[in-house]
């Protein structure tokens, strides 16, 4: 039976959301190359499973959830295969897309965000950077509302403290 092509409206919305998906994926992976791969996998998964998306719900939340799930799957595979904590790996992928990484100039706050533990990063990226509500963040990450609050508060206070330190250090060096 011939199947219709993917719905153009769905595809257009998907393309519109790519920058935000990429930003979220970068916050998770801390590598542009990996973020791009993750987003591509997520988009293809979304197109494949788009019948599962309910049109009366937010497409961005659904896509963020796919990105998050694929990322977690990848981390599990990596941990299982190499017995390493993926979050302990150095920032960025030294073997791929060096030019792209080099073009991305990170500010202080961005470097500090990427230095947070993975679970805190995910919550911070959604609730603070993306502006999702705590309830939406909890739904996307599949964690309780209270866990969102506690992870976010740790992340936000750590970020605030680190920014203070950075500011003080820069002040002390006269910058």
């Amino acid at each position, binding site marked *: 039976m011939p*199947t219709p092509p993917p719905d153009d409206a769905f595809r257009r919305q998907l393309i519109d959301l790519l920058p935000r998906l990429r*930003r979220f994926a970068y*916050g998770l992976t801390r590598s542009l190359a990996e973020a791009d791969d993750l987003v591509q996998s997520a*988009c293809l998964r979304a197109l494949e499973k788009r019948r599962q998306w309910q049109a009366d719900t937010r497409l961005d939340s659904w896509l963020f959830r796919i990105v998050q799930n694929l990322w977690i799957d990848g981390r599990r595979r990596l941990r299982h295969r190499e017995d390493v904590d993926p979050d302990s790996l150095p920032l960025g992928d030294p073997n791929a897309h060096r030019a792209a990484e080099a073009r991305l100039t990170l500010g202080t706050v961005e470097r500090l965000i990427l230095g947070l533990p993975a679970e805190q990063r995910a919550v911070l990226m959604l609730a603070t950077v993306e502006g999702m509500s705590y309830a939406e963040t909890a739904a996307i990450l599949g964690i309780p509302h209270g866990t969102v609050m506690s992870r976010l508060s740790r992340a936000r206070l750590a970020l605030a403290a680190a*920014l203070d330190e950075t500011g003080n250090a820069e002040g002390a060096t006269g910058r």
Partner: protein
Amino acid sequence: MTPTRPGDQASHPQQDRLVAYVDGELDIDEREAVQALIAGDRHAAAIVERLIASRDQAEGAFGAILAAAPRPELLAAIERADAPAPAPGWRDRLTRFTLSRTWRLAVAPAALAAALLLAVTVVTMPGDEAGFTLASGGGLDIPAEVQPVLPGLLDAGGGERQGSLAGGDAWRLAVLPADIPEAPGCLVVVFASDALPESVGLACPVEAGWRVATVALAPAP
């Protein structure tokens, strides 16, 4: 980065609520309680001030990524993407049917026969030119004691039941969407038991209920 620990200048016993307050996530009562706390607790007030400042900085983070065009390969992949795979057909679902291994092996030939014959059944229905028995509600070879279960599964659009026959032999009855465009609303019925030949049928809605056709029988295990 310096983690926050109890006693740190950056931490506070109510830090979760302070962050939620800054994010506008508290209801009116909680918000007023935090405002009262801030009014009388300079440490809490200082934390809130720093939280607001750091939030404002974080909100604009990674702007360079937002501004960058997606990589062309990704756009091309989205443009090229085929239609989503249709929902698994009844044949696929049949092979994933949660029978015991013995039963699964027994049902497999019946499922295969059904897959081959269903199309013919649909084309020839009603009638028995293909050698099938077509009967209203009774075409499938299901023991009388199990038959009362079937209408409920059909009306529900699918499902699975199991039990034991009077002689103690286990049975399982499953109804799955057929997904045959030419036969909208039709369902595949599979009956498996330890003692009787496995039976696969096609049930289609009619005015009075369901017309059930037996399309395949397989030897009992």
